[in-house]
């Protein structure tokens, strides 16, 4: 009987030890890529590559939205007819009452939402025409025009902050510089037209015939 116990005891020890040995992984062995990323990025302490040399001449400003801090291109210097006050010396409501006034900005027509929702002064500040305005009347700088878009397009804003919407400028390396809304979308006419694809592979057609 005692011998029997001994036998069981030995088998138990063997089983446990074999389990321990077989479950032991080499340092570089992970069950999947997710585990590997998690394990290897634990001690991440930056890299020697920087995006700065690639961003180069692009004038950027740093913004912080929620937990994300990154660079966006500066906007004001890119707008041809900025600042507005260089032409307009009077306030908007004064201009509207001028008798022989000419129609200004005839080349801009709004094709963004409908008349009930938006007109010029939904975004442009009527009192302070060098600035933009939020729905509640808070002044927004032209450089931060994304704050205007994010009032309605909240889902896109969340994706843009994280990096799922929009484009990163030049380099994947930190610091991150992302394009802002108006670098792709025309705020007055944000819709994109269909177009022809950039190429057609004639060789593929031949091969498949």
């Amino acid at each position, binding site marked *: 009987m005692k011998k029997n116990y001994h036998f069981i005891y030995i088998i138990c020890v063997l089983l446990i030890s074999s389990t321990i040995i077989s479950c032991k992984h080499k340092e570089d062995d992970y069950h*999947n*890529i997710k585990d*590997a*990323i998690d394990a*290897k*990025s634990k001690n*991440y*302490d*930056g*890299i*020697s*590559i*920087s*995006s700065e*040399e*690639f961003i180069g001449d692009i004038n950027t400003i740093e913004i912080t939205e929620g937990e994300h801090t990154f660079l966006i291109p500066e906007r004001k210097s890119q707008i041809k007819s900025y600042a507005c006050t260089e032409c307009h010396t009077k306030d908007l409501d004064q201009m509207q009452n001028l008798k022989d006034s000419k129609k200004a900005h005839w080349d801009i027509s709004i094709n963004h939402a409908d008349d009930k929702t938006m007109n010029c002064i939904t975004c442009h500040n009527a009192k302070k025409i060098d600035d933009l305005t939020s729905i509640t009347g808070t002044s927004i700088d032209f450089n931060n025009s994304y704050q205007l878009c994010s009032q309605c397009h909240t*889902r896109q804003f969340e*994706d843009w902050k*994280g*990096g*799922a*919407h*929009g*484009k*990163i400028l*030049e*380099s*994947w*390396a*930190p610091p*991150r510089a*992302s*394009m802002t809304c108006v670098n*792709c979308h025309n705020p007055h006419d944000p819709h*994109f037209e*269909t*177009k*022809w*694809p*950039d*190429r*057609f*592979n*004639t*060789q*593929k*057609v031949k091969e*498949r015939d």
Partner: protein
Amino acid sequence: MSSNDKKWFSLDLGNKKKQESSSCGCGKSSSGCNSHNKPIQEKQPDGFDQVFNVKMDRRTAFKKLTASLAIGAGAISTSCSVVAGDETKEKSQIEWEEQFKGNYKLMTDEEKKGTVDRLVRSYQLRTGKNISMSSKNAEEDVLFGYAFNISKCQGYMDCVSACVEENNQDRNSQMEYIRIHEMKDGKGFNFNEADDNYYHEVPAEGHFYMGTQCFHCDNPPCVDVCPVQATWREDDGLVVIDYDWCIGCRYCMAACPYDGRRFNWSKPEVPEVEVNKDQHYLGNRMRKKGVMEKCTFCVQRSRAGKNPACVEACPTGSRIFGNLLDPNSTIRWVIENKKVFRLKEDLGTEPKFWYFMD
């Protein structure tokens, strides 16, 4: 580098004069090109033996050399010719060195630099034009990953054009690494019915677009099947090919479940003016007939810190590229916050290419 470190044969093709003035066949005064050694002083195994770890003595080395003489005969005859100029001799010297170099995967950094220098010089001798070629290794703490937004892609194919131009792909056979599949709404990912060579205005009504290319699997089946280890996974996750070591058996092409690999059925031709001269040994340098090639996430750009050409060219922002090990990178945010999936995940290939939707 001393001759004892050499892993392949070298032969001095009558460039003694140059050697005395402490320069060598490749025109470099450094030892980068490995032609500073006396002929046939071989102790170290060549590339084949590096792989299989076979001990090689002096005798087998001579045997191997004899067998290789057929290839070298042309080079030797040129070198002995009185008529042939210095440049021709130098060319033959480079050809010789290139013929017997080892597998890039096993090269030391100096050897990598040596072969890159030779290739640059060889291009210069052939065309009179200068290229720059890098042998930059994987950066520490970098693992490249890619995400593709299916709801954003509009099928413009700007990425395909940018890729062809960046990577010096054969213009005759119109080789393309990227394929954009036009899929019908409501049919799911049905690649059999999808069209990857459409020509009409896009985006087409009732369709969505999905791009495929090499996914740089973390567990790449193409690497396992290569009989000569000419393709491997680098430390930054890129799956690369040594075009000079590839024998063109196309096992990898058959093993890839994603149709990510391309074969050069003919000699790749790129018009001289269109050649991208910013090259990497493992990336967009000129290939030859009968070797495999594929997307390298533009190794010549990505290792330098730039986005791959397709990411830069995409006007819709569907393509996201970055470092998976950087917890603050956008690619990490996408993977952790969007509903992502990968193609044929059940195969266990662990592609580092995620798809997601808005």
